[in-house]
C-alpha cells in the first residue's frame, strides 16, 4: 500500500495558501495548497511536535503555529529556527478535482 496513490481530500476543500489535516493509513498528513498546486508532508513540526496543519501557509512556506519554525512545503527543508530538522514530504497528484498522496 505504501507505493499506492491514496485519496486524500477534494481539492476544493482547501483554500488557496492554506493547509488541511488528513489521516491516511494511520499517518497524520498535512496537505498544502499554494498557487493552485498541492503538496503534502507529515503533520508534525520537528521542533515542538505541534500539528503543522494548525499553522499558516505563507507562499511556499508552512509556519508552525507554536514557535513559528518554518519549512518549505515543496521539499520539507527546515528554513528557520527554532526548527532545524526537515520534515518528510510525500508525492501528490490531482485528478478530477481529487488530491491523491503516496505516503511512502
Amino acid at each position, binding site marked *: 500500500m505504501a507505493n499506492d496513490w491514496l485519496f486524500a481530500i477534494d481539492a476544493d476543500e482547501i483554500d488557496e495558501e*492554506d493547509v488541511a489535516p488528513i489521516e491516511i493509513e494511520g499517518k497524520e498528513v498535512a496537505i498544502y495548497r499554494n498557487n493552485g498546486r498541492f503538496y503534502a508532508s507529515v503533520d508534525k513540526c520537528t*521542533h*515542538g*511536535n*505541534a*500539528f503543522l496543519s*494548525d*499553522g*499558516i501557509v*505563507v507562499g511556499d512556506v508552512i*509556519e508552525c*503555529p*507554536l*514557535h*513559528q519554525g*518554518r519549512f518549505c512545503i515543496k521539499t520539507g527543508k527546515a528554513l*528557520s*529556527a*527554532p526548527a*532545524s*530538522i526537515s520534515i518528510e514530504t510525500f508525492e501528490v497528484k490531482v485528478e478530477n478535482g481529487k488530491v491523491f498522496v503516496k505516503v511512502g
Partner: protein
Amino acid sequence: MTTIDANADLLKRQREIISRKTLKPYTKRKDLPGLIYFFGLLSCIGLTGFVVFLAEPHGWWIWPAMLLHGIMLSHLFAPLHETSHGTAFKTRWINECVLWFCGIVTIWTPLYFRYDHAGHHTYAQVPGKDPEFVLPTPRTILGYFYYVSAMHLWVKNGGWLFRHALGYMTPFNRQFVPEDQLPKIFLEARIMLAIYFGLAAFTIYTGSLVVLTYWLIPTIIGVPVARMLRVADHTGCVEKSDLRKYARTVTTDRITRFFCWNMSYHCEHHLAPSVPFHNLKGLHEEVGHELNTVDKGYIGVQWEVLTKHMSGLWRKKPHESVVQD
C-alpha cells in the same frame, strides 16, 4: 509533563478559546505596519539623539537627554521580540535584518533569544521551566528593583554573550537548543563580541565619546522603562500553564502601544503567537473578554505588583518565615 505534551496542551487550549477558522484572518502577514512602526521608532531615536547632541555643551543637561534617548533605544526590544517570532514582516529578509539590528543595539543574541523565547512560550509561568520567568513567587521589593534596574538583564545577556562566544552553554539554556544549532549560536556571540570590541577599540583609539554618549550609557540608564513593561506581562498572574490567566493584557494608550508594538495585548500574543503585532488589537476584540484583561494602565499594574504581589522587602531565610508557637 514533557515539552511535546506541553506544546500539545497549549494548542488544545488555544482551540477551546478560538477556532482555527476564526483565527486565520488574524495571522495574515504584511510588511507595511512593521515598516511604519520600525522607522517610526528609528525616527524617535534619531530625534532624541539630536536632543543629546544639543544638550552636550550644557553640562548636566546631557543626563536627562541621554535618559530620554535610552528610553527610546530600549523600545527596540519590541521589534526584536516580534522579529524573533518572524511575524513582524511578510518579507523574511527584512524580518531577519531588523532582528539582527535590534539584537546588536540592545545587546541580545538574536538566534539564541529565538530558542529561549520559544521555551518561554512552551513553559510560560511554569516554575523552574520558564526561561523568562519574571519575578516568580516569593517575590520581594528588592527583587523588583533588581529586575527593573536591568542589572539582571546585563548579567543574563552578558552571560549568554561571553559563555556562548567561549563555546559553552549552561545545561538549563541548552535544553532549548538542538545540538546542530550550537555552532551557529556560538558564532553569533563571537560576531557580536567582535562588533562590541571594535566599538571599544574605536573609543579608546580616537578618544571619541560618541559610542558612550549616543548608545552605551543611554542603553544602560534607559532600559528600566522597557523592563517595567515586561513586569506587567506576567508578574502576579497564575504560575501554571493557563492560557487564560498566566498573562495580563493591559489596556493602555496608543502611544504606549506604538512603543511596545502592541505587546500590551499579551494574553492574545500568548494565545496565538502566529498573529502579528498589528492584528493583536483585532484579536483582543474577538477574544479579549475570555482572557485576563486589566483596565488600569501600566503604572496601575506596577502599583498592583508592588502592593499586592510582594512578600516583603527582601527574601527571608527559610527559618525566619516559619511562625513559631
